[in-house]
């Protein structure tokens, strides 16, 4: 009996692996048809947050070199624009119905991530992670404010509502060679 179970145990040890399937979920933009002319979408400068990563994995946000640890606060500031700063995205007022009411939010903001061909994958993922974390934190704060629950505990409709207030808009340009 013990032999049989030993055999089974060893079989499972050999054929299985420990790794769990976790990851940073993202959505790619739909492809542009080849016959369509690429239009330069005109984005107001105040609605755009440019995050650049160079080949040495250094970070530049709005022309300023910053540390990865500052990126989350910077992104949150940009997305929410609490003080109606004229240099941060334009605020729009919209009525979201019963528990939320009228909310001012930045409908048109875009975060643009630009990386170099030689950027390290880990550095790129760090940036993506911080940006997603910024959105997640804002959504969670919003959920606590209006529903007195965490974002993950809300039902689907409520989550959709909050997603509307904080839509994830991370655009990725094709990598360029910026040099060093």
């Amino acid at each position, binding site marked *: 009996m013990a032999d049989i179970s030993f055999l089974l145990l060893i079989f499972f040890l050999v*054929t299985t692996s420990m790794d769990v399937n976790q990851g940073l979920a993202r959505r790619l933009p739909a492809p542009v048809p080849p016959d369509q002319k690429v239009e330069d979408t005109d984005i107001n400068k105040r609605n755009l947050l440019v995050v650049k990563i160079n080949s040495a994995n250094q970070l530049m946000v709005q022309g300023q070199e910053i540390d990865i640890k500052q990126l989350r606060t910077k992104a949150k500031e940009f997305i929410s624009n609490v003080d109606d700063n004229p240099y941060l995205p334009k605020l729009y007022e919209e009525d979201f119905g019963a528990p939320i009411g009228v909310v001012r939010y930045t409908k048109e903001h875009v975060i643009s991530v630009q990386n170099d*061909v030689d950027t390290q994958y880990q550095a790129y993922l760090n940036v993506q992670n911080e940006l997603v974390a910024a959105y997640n934190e804002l959504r969670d704060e919003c959920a606590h404010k209006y529903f007195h629950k965490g974002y993950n505990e809300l039902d689907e409709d409520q989550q959709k509502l909050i997603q509307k207030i904080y839509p994830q808009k991370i655009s990725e340009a094709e990598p360029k060679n910026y040099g060093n």
Partner: protein
Amino acid sequence: MAKIRRNEKREMPALNTSSLPDIIFMLLFFFMSVTSMKEVTYKVQFQNPQATELTKLEKKSLVRYIYVGTPTAEFRKQYGHETRIQLDDAFADKSEIGDYIINERSAMKEQDQGLMTVSIKADKETRMGIIADIKQELRRAYALKISYAATQRTSY
């Protein structure tokens, strides 16, 4: 009458192994529950990058994997040290990704096709050039739901 037998040689009783199967089965079930079946044999080696905002990939049958890394020791002679892409059980060129995705998708049930997720398992040292190429190929194949495989980071 009780008698103290001091000089008699005493044998050590044999170890009782009747509960051994139970213990081994317990181990077996533990391993069965914490591990998962290997999808393929890896021909590239990679170390997952770390991140904090992770989501679990829900349905395994809807997930396809793209492995990116340097070839393992046994393939180094043949393929060198350059970063390579592995699809299923073989090395592949980036131009093959589109066909692979389309093939895999058409093999799925029709209602599941839109839910297909592509998990990119790349080494953390990989350069972004190759990742960007893969993303472009995925876009062209309309596999827009992707996931960058990563492990949980506990601290900076």
